[in-house]
C-alpha cells in the first residue's frame, strides 16, 4: 500500500509539475520554443500568463477544487464540486477556458450540473482534472468511469471528452496499482481501438487543446520515453496546449514512475502551498477509495 500511496501522490504532483512547467511554452510552436529556450526543462514561470516560477494554472486548481469537495464531503459530491468551481471562478483565477467558464456560470446562475451536448465541447478541460477522480475511486474502474463523465459534464458534454476522461482515469489507476509498462501500453491500445481519434502512431505533432491532439501527444511522449523527466520535457517542448498536455503526461508518468521519478529540482520550485496541499490531498483521496477498504 505504501507504493500505491507514493504513486498516487506522484500522479497528483505530476499534474502540478506538468502544469507549471508547460505553462511557459503554452501556445508556442516547437521552433519558437527552441529559439526562446533551447530545450525548455526548468520551472521558470513566464509564458502568456506572466506566471511566477512554480505557479500553477487552471489544470491544477480545478483538480484541487474536486479534491477539496470530495475530501470535505467524505465521498463523491457533485454539487460540492460545482460549488467549488464557482467559488474559484469568482476569485479571478489566472486562467479559465471559455468552455469551462460557460459551464461553471450556468451552474452558478441556473444550478445546471450537466451542460447540453455540444460539438464544440471536445476540448481537454474536463480530462485535465481527472487525477482526484482516479484517486478517490481507486480499485473500482466502473465507478471511476461513471464519476469521470459526471464531473466532465459540468462543463464538457462530448463523446471524445467522455472517452478521454474515462480512458485516462483508467490508465492512471492501473499505473498506481502497479501495472507494467507493457500493460499500460495494452490499455492505451485498447482505448485507441475504441476511440480512433486517440491513435498516436504515426504522431503528427498536433498538440492543441482539442482532446484528440492532447491524448495523442501524451501517449506519444509517455510511451516514447523511459522516465518522468524525459516524458515531461518532450511533452512541453511540443508546445501547443503545453500546460495541459504537461499536466496529463505528469499524471500518467507520476502514477507509473512514482515519487522518486519526479526531479527534486522541479518539486522544489513548485509553489510551496500547492505542493503541500496536493501531497496531502492525494493521501486523503486514496484513503476514501475502495482500494483502501471503503465501498
Amino acid at each position, binding site marked *: 500500500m505504501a507504493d500505491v500511496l507514493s504513486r498516487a501522490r506522484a500522479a497528483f504532483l505530476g499534474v502540478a509539475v506538468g502544469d507549471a512547467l508547460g505553462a511557459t511554452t503554452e501556445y508556442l510552436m516547437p521552433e519558437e520554443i527552441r529559439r526562446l529556450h533551447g530545450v525548455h526543462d526548468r520551472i521558470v514561470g513566464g509564458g502568456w500568463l506572466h506566471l511566477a516560477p512554480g505557479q500553477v494554472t487552471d489544470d491544477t486548481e480545478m483538480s484541487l477544487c474536486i479534491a477539496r469537495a470530495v475530501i470535505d464531503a467524505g465521498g463523491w459530491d457533485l454539487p460540492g464540486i460545482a460549488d467549488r468551481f464557482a467559488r474559484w471562478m469568482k476569485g*479571478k483565477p489566472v486562467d479559465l477556458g471559455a468552455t469551462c467558464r460557460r459551464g461553471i456560470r450556468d451552474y452558478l446562475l441556473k444550478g445546471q450540473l450537466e451542460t447540453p451536448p455540444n460539438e*464544440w465541447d471536445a476540448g481537454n478541460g474536463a480530462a485535465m482534472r481527472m487525477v482526484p477522480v482516479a484517486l478517490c475511486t481507486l480499485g473500482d474502474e466502473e465507478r471511476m468511469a461513471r464519476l469521470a463523465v459526471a464531473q466532465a459534464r459540468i462543463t464538457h458534454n462530448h463523446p471524445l471528452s467522455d472517452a478521454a476522461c474515462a480512458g485516462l482515469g483508467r490508465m492512471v489507476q492501473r499505473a498506481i496499482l502497479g501495472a507494467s509498462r507493457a500493460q499500460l501500453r495494452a490499455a492505451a491500445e485498447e482505448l485507441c481501438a475504441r476511440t480512433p481519434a486517440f491513435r498516436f502512431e504515426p504522431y503528427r505533432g498536433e498538440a492543441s487543446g482539442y482532446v484528440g491532439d492532447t491524448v495523442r501527444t501524451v501517449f506519444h511522449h509517455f510511451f516514447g520515453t523511459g522516465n518522468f523527466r524525459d516524458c515531461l520535457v518532450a511533452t512541453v517542448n511540443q508546445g501547443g496546449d503545453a500546460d495541459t498536455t504537461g499536466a496529463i503526461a505528469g499524471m500518467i508518468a507520476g502514477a507509473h514512475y512514482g515519487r522518486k521519478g519526479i526531479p527534486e529540482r522541479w518539486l522544489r520550485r513548485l509553489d510551496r502551498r500547492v505542493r503541500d496541499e496536493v501531497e496531502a490531498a492525494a493521501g486523503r483521496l486514496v484513503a476514501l477509495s475502495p482500494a483502501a477498504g471503503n465501498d
Partner: protein
Amino acid sequence: MKKIEAIIKPFKLDEVKESLNDIGVQGMTVSEVKGFGRQKGHTELYRGAEYVVDFLPKIKLEIIVPDDLVAQVVEVVEKSARTGRIGDGKIFVTNVEEVIRIRTGERGLDAI
C-alpha cells in the same frame, strides 16, 4: 444573443466589472465616449472666463450575452452603476444575429 450596451460614469467601471465577474461574466469591450443629457458638464476657466463644458466623459460597455443571461446582466449593471444622481447613464439591449470567435471560428453561443 443580445448586445447589452451601457453608458456609465467612468469611476463606476471597476465596480461594474467586479459585479459582472461575480456572475461569471468577464468578456467585454469598453470605450470612452462623451455624454450629453440632463447632467451639466463641469465649468472651465478659459481666457479668464468661466464657461460650462456641455458634455461629460462617460464609459460605454458592450457585452454580448446569451438571451437567458440578459435580465441578470442588466440588473447587475444597473445596480452597480447607480449613484442615484443625474447622469448615471443608460442601458440599451439590441438583438445580435450572429457572433463569431475570430481565433477558432466558433459561432453562436460558443463564441462568447
